[in-house]
């Protein structure tokens, strides 16, 4: 058999066009394209691609179903371990996960696993996906705090097991980073809204506008104080606290955290101001500081809001950029300017409004603790880059509110919650997973953590809630 060396390309919106709108950039595979791509798969046994997927989707099997035009079979296989394929198919860093391990990739293009996953999810959506039936009902009530991918996954799995599940979300719209962070042109909010709707039809209660730690605490949930009593609590509150650099001039007007900028645009729909009430301000030149997905999203969003020049300022070189290759590629195609090996030193304003960023040139030294070469400032190389807006996309850390207001919950020096491989925390009856445990990571890892915790919660409730049992013998008795 002939081996097709190249991936079937995915149709995309033209860069010149798309930089002016918020519509999705990649347009998805057609049925024919999907089958053709699926036909490239070697159906390896054992299949190394599976080991690259954090939730171990049976990749060859779902691809075989696509090949045989059994799209229902494909989506069923994926959904055995992945509740949100429409999301992961779009935003997973596939090139470092499943696709990196793909045998085809050793010589040619790896199989476009993510695109096929997205295709299967899209096919299901077009059919008018059926809401999973929850037949049995199991004794036990579980509270989920946070409605990001970890919380949504845990909620869905526990509901399917028959438990009573309530999700508490501080925002008015559930979905976490998927709705407030990742822009429409990469992940339309509709998709996430649809998933939440399915959950609610399954009988999961989703309580919006509920700030846990202020309205009531995790202890209240376990004790039935002020609210219903819950047997177990899963914490999936993410890593939403934005970092700033603490540089002079950082509080000038026009300097945003990426969280603020993206929340205004994605969650509050500032790109439709004044039809929507929330404003966002974008001048002619916008500088985004950082080199991850968040930075790419911010820079590309600024462009769509009308910036004439949208720049990325990053302190290492392109090779070390944590953003996905596809995102960097898309950003370049759209005309984002990359100012690499540059680090901001201060922000210069006029009448309270930022006007320039002073940067210093950097060179790469020995690897640091992250294994990447350490950027070292080159003395005397400072110069100014004019900018009307600056977006700080340099990282986030977990929000301390829930840990601080929950008794007996241990965190470590990075502010993340200590949890074991099953997601159990140091507090009886409380699990945690996703970015709140790992620090800012990925959608699929958060989903995986939600799944693992759901399984363990089920095991724990079924075994009569012995926090110290044969499942967890290395734990201290309380």
């Amino acid at each position, binding site marked *: 058999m002939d081996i097709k060396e190249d991936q079937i390309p995915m149709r995309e919106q033209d860069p010149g066009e798309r930089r002016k709108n918020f519509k999705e950039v990649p347009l998805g595979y057609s049925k024919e394209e999907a089958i053709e791509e699926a036909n490239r798969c070697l159906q390896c046994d054992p299949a190394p691609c599976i080991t690259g997927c954090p939730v171990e989707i049976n990749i060859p099997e779902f691809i075989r179903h696509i090949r045989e035009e059994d799209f229902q079979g494909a989506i069923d296989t994926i959904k055995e371990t992945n509740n949100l394929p429409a999301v992961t198919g779009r935003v997973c860093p596939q090139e470092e996960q499943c696709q990196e391990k793909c045998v085809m990739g050793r010589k040619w293009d790896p199989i476009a696993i993510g695109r096929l996953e997205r295709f299967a999810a899209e096919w299901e959506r077009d059919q008018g996906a059926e809401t999973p039936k929850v037949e049995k009902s199991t004794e036990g009530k579980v509270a989920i705090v946070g409605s990001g991918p970890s919380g949504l996954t845990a909620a869905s799995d526990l509901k399917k097991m028959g438990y009573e599940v309530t999700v508490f979300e*501080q*925002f*008015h719209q559930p979905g976490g980073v998927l709705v*407030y962070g990742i822009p429409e042109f990469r992940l339309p909010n509709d998709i996430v809204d649809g998933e939440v709707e399915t959950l609610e039809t399954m009988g999961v209660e989703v309580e*919006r*506008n*509920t*700030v846990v730690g*202020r*309205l*009531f605490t995790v202890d209240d949930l376990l004790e039935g104080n*002020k*609210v219903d009593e819950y047997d177990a609590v899963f914490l999936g509150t993410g890593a*939403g*606290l*934005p970092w*700033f650099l*603490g540089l002079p001039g*950082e*509080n*000038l*007007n*026009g300097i*945003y*955290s990426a*969280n*603020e900028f993206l*929340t*205004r645009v994605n969650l*509050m*729909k500032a790109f439709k*101001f*004044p*039809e*929507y*009430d*929330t*404003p966002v*301000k974008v001048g002619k030149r916008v500088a985004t500081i950082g080199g991850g997905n968040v930075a790419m999203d911010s820079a590309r969003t600024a462009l769509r809001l009308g910036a004439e020049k949208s720049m990325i300022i990053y302190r290492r070189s392109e090779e070390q950029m944590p953003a996905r290759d596809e995102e960097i590629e898309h950003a370049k195609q759209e005309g984002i300017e990359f100012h690499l090996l540059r680090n901001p030193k201060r922000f210069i304003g006029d009448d*309270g409004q930022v006007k320039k960023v002073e940067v210093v040139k950097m060179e790469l030294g020995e690897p640091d603790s992250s294994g990447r070469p350490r950027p070292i400032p080159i003395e005397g190389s400072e110069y100014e880059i004019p900018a009307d807006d600056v977006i700080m996309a340099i990282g986030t850390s977990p*929000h301390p*509110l829930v840990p601080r207001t929950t008794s007996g919950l241990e965190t470590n020096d990075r502010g993340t919650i200590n949890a074991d491989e099953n997601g159990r925390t140091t507090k009886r009856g409380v699990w945690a997973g996703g970015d709140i445990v790992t620090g800012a990571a990925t959608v699929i890892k958060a989903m995986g953590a939600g799944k693992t915790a759901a399984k363990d919660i089920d095991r724990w409730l079924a075994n009569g809630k012995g926090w110290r049992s044969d499942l967890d013998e290395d734990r201290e008795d309380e």
Partner: protein
Amino acid sequence: MKKILKKTKVGTGVWEYEIEAPLIAESNKPGQFIILRLHEKGERIPLTIADASVEKGTITIAAQSAGKTTTELNDKYGEEDYIHDLAGPLGNPSEIENYGNVVTIGGGVGIALIYPIAKALKEAGNHVTSIVGAQSAEKLFYEDKIGGVSDELIITTDDGSVGRKGFTSDAFEDVLNERTIHKSWAIGPVIMMKVCSEVASKYDTELIVSLNTIMVDGTGMCGGCRVEVGDKAKFACINGPEFKADRVDFDVLLQRNQTYVEEEKCALDRYLEEE
């Protein structure tokens, strides 16, 4: 969805709303606020919890028509209407103790916001002197209510149409001249808080101010509410909203609150045109 049970006009352009929110009423402490979004297209705006009743399961908020959202609320929302989203209580509560002699200062809509603090301080056993100020008599409101929880009430108006002529800060200075004050609170326009802060520094007495920054989430996720306190950036929603006045850089606050003036004007004009 949160239901408005009662709406009362309390001053020029200021309305008070009693809203059904039993859990917030139960958890609320003086000094905290809520964030509301009127409808699907609305902005999230912070408003202080001016009062709460656990028995009735209600909270009270007071809103002054400033821009689009507050004007729309005051114009269009009445009894039996629902506010689409309302989250709280947010922010850290005021530190209420028996300090001895305290002063609570409210200016403009801040009069409504100082009330729960004055009340709690009184209940904690303090001798409470309240100073409330407005531009003129018809802009003044709540004076009886505040008077009811204070040992002494001083009213000031810019034009002298009621009470003494002048600013709250002048009255504050007089009180400080008269006797030892152990702690004070001031809530109102940034300029008022800034001047009160200067007065407090002069008399070396502790003043707490509640900062009305621009906010989006109100939960520490955006940093849009950041202010400079003691030369460090602090998030008003989670580190505040109350801060020690002598550490606050009021000029940065004034500057940052200017960020969206053009857009705010555009939104209000467009709204008024449509009506």
